[in-house]
């Protein structure tokens, strides 16, 4: 189904993602990125029709932490604003629906996360089912390792193939000045077997921002807008033992609803923090070797939690802006072992 209005990503900015940034508060980390996307479009904070953000109180270690970051968008006098306690890709989805209603023509979407103050492996256990799983404190790497083992047992990958995913990602990231891990990175020791350090994302702090615009407004703000042809997100059972961990039916369904299978894409930015998750996503999205997967290096090169999914959409859009892609797929995930998945299809005007 064709959307009610044409909506595009017209600008994207991100921080240089780093292991720690304790000299900066969240809003201090975010401000340069917000100004980057505003400068790129010539918009000022007061021009933005709708603002939406993604972040997590559990990363910040304080309640209502997103309100602090609102200082960065000029929230006084009151603005039209919303927040999701999720990756910013879901904030972008909310902004997209807002623009579809016609209530706004432009939207600023941003996301940020500082993993450095806490232990992100422990912090992420708090998103698990509180009755059966959270009391056991299974950390994010452990859960990903269970999925990796299931894939190996099913004959869909092996440790060598996983290492090559890591190597390819970080080699691609040499061209990405924002990435945290670039070039040859040792595969390292087992963190939770069968996953080695190299199979896991770096832990770091970072932020990203995107500007969306509708119709002619998008053409005014960007030479080659990245039109969102479709976007959808799906969720599957929370309990890992109910799911087939070697597949991602929610990703496949989201991709189908976003129109991803109607025509081939040339680029895919996949939010796969663990090497084994790229194996699952390639299968679910039917990506063959003709598709350039994660030219940015992906989440294995930089994984600022809560921003990494939005960055996938931003990276895909930026390639369309630069004329390096005509039809790109962007994917974002949330929850353990690819529980929730969002897929967007972005296209540039014909050249």
């Amino acid at each position, binding site marked *: 189904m064709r959307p009610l209005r044409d909506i595009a990503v017209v600008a994207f900015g991100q921080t240089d993602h780093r292991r720690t940034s*304790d*000299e*900066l*508060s*969240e*809003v*201090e980390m975010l*401000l340069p990125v*917000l*100004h980057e996307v505003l400068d790129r479009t010539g918009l000022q*904070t007061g021009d933005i029709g709708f603002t939406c953000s993604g972040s997590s109180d*559990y990363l910040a*270690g304080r309640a209502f932490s997103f309100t*602090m970051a*609102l*200082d*960065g*968008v*000029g*929230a*006084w006098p009151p603005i039209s604003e919303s927040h999701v306690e999720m990756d910013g890709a879901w904030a972008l989805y909310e902004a997209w629906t807002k623009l579809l209603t016609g209530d706004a023509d432009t939207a600023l979407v941003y996301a940020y996360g500082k993993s*450095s*103050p*806490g*232990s992100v*492996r*422990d*912090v992420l*256990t*708090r998103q698990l089912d*509180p*009755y*059966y*799983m*959270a*009391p*056991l*404190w*299974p*950390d994010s790497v*452990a*859960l990903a*390792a*269970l*999925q*990796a*083992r*299931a894939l190996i*047992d099913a004959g869909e990958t092996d440790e060598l193939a996983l290492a090559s995913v890591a190597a390819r990602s970080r080699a691609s990231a040499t061209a990405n000045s924002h990435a945290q891990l670039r070039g040859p990175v040792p595969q390292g020791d*087992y963190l*939770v*077997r*069968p*996953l080695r350090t190299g199979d896991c994302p770096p832990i770091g702090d970072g932020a990203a921002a995107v500007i969306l615009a509708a119709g002619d407004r998008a053409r005014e703000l960007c030479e080659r807008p990245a039109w969102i042809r479709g976007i959808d997100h799906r969720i599957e*059972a929370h*309990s*890992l*033992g*109910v799911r087939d*961990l070697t597949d991602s039916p929610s990703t496949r369904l989201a991709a189908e609803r976003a129109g991803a299978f109607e025509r081939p894409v040339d680029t895919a930015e996949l939010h796969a923090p663990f090497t084994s998750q790229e194996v699952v996503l390639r299968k679910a999205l039917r990506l063959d070797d003709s598709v350039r997967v994660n030219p940015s290096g992906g989440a294995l090169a930089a994984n600022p939690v809560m921003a990494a999914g939005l960055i996938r959409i931003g990276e895909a859009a930026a390639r369309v802006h630069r004329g390096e892609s005509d039809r790109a797929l962007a994917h974002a995930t949330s929850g353990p072992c690819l529980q929730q998945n969002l897929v967007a299809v972005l296209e540039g005007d014909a050249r």
Partner: protein
Amino acid sequence: MPEVLKAPLVVEFPFTRSLGPVQSAFLTGLREGVVLGVRAADGRTLVPPVEYDPVTAEEIRDLVEVAPTGTVTTWAWNHEPRRGQPLDTPFAWVLVRLDGADTALLHALDAPGPDAVRTGMRVRIRWAPERSGAITDIACFEPFDGAAGGRPTGHDGRFDDMVTGIVAPARLDYVYSPGRAQSAYIASLSERRTVGERCPSCRKVYVPSRGACPTCGVATSEPVEVGPRGTVTTYCIVNIKAKNLDIEVPYVYAHIALDGAGLALHGRIGGIPYDEVRMGLRVEPVWSEGGRYPDHYRPTGEPDADYETYKEML
């Protein structure tokens, strides 16, 4: 630039959660050494059980007992156990499909090393010596190669003294840093000075500064010393004694616009009867010995400030 401050921050809280009928039966069962699943619409037995069918979303209540023995469906070797995890010696995370169940349960497997673990291996529950009705009543799984023991008795999930809730304690440790702007503010306080930052666009002075102007959405950076004297812009009289706070009630809590600041700070007013505090009262900070911020503010004796001078800061 002053040193960026850091301090340990522990967030610790017990979540008290009530259980629905299915979770209540399952966790009570664990206390009694009985494992229960729930029958889904498609005939599958789900363990651990849920209240709503994952396919049809229908409410499901049909409890069935399964065996304490089962098969590993996937595993991961955890050589460095973390705080709160089921075992403090190296162990395998496992998903186990118990005999009689169609789905798998997450838990830990006590095994000598990764070479002793494989998908498809047979395991059984090792019960915790003391059980309360929680997932941790299963201490862990252990390898099992004997004949199927502890056959299900056909329990229907009705027990005396049902567990109706759990308390799930959580603790997360952080090293908190307030960032550049707030570090500078706190550092100035240690010299008994109050320093804010001016917005380059609207020229307003924020104190304490968080590094950004919420009106203009731009970074603030020019330090500006404000006070020490200020004006009460508004106030309230507190009649409830706060726990662990050694202040006699009633007392006055006020917004105080320090001279040169663009917005008001919070502070307690002392040195004057509570019912004589008023808008426009001129005050100054009083520091206690070794205090890291003003203990309270007291009247300076100056004439009251004109309303026009502070009305923008209400």
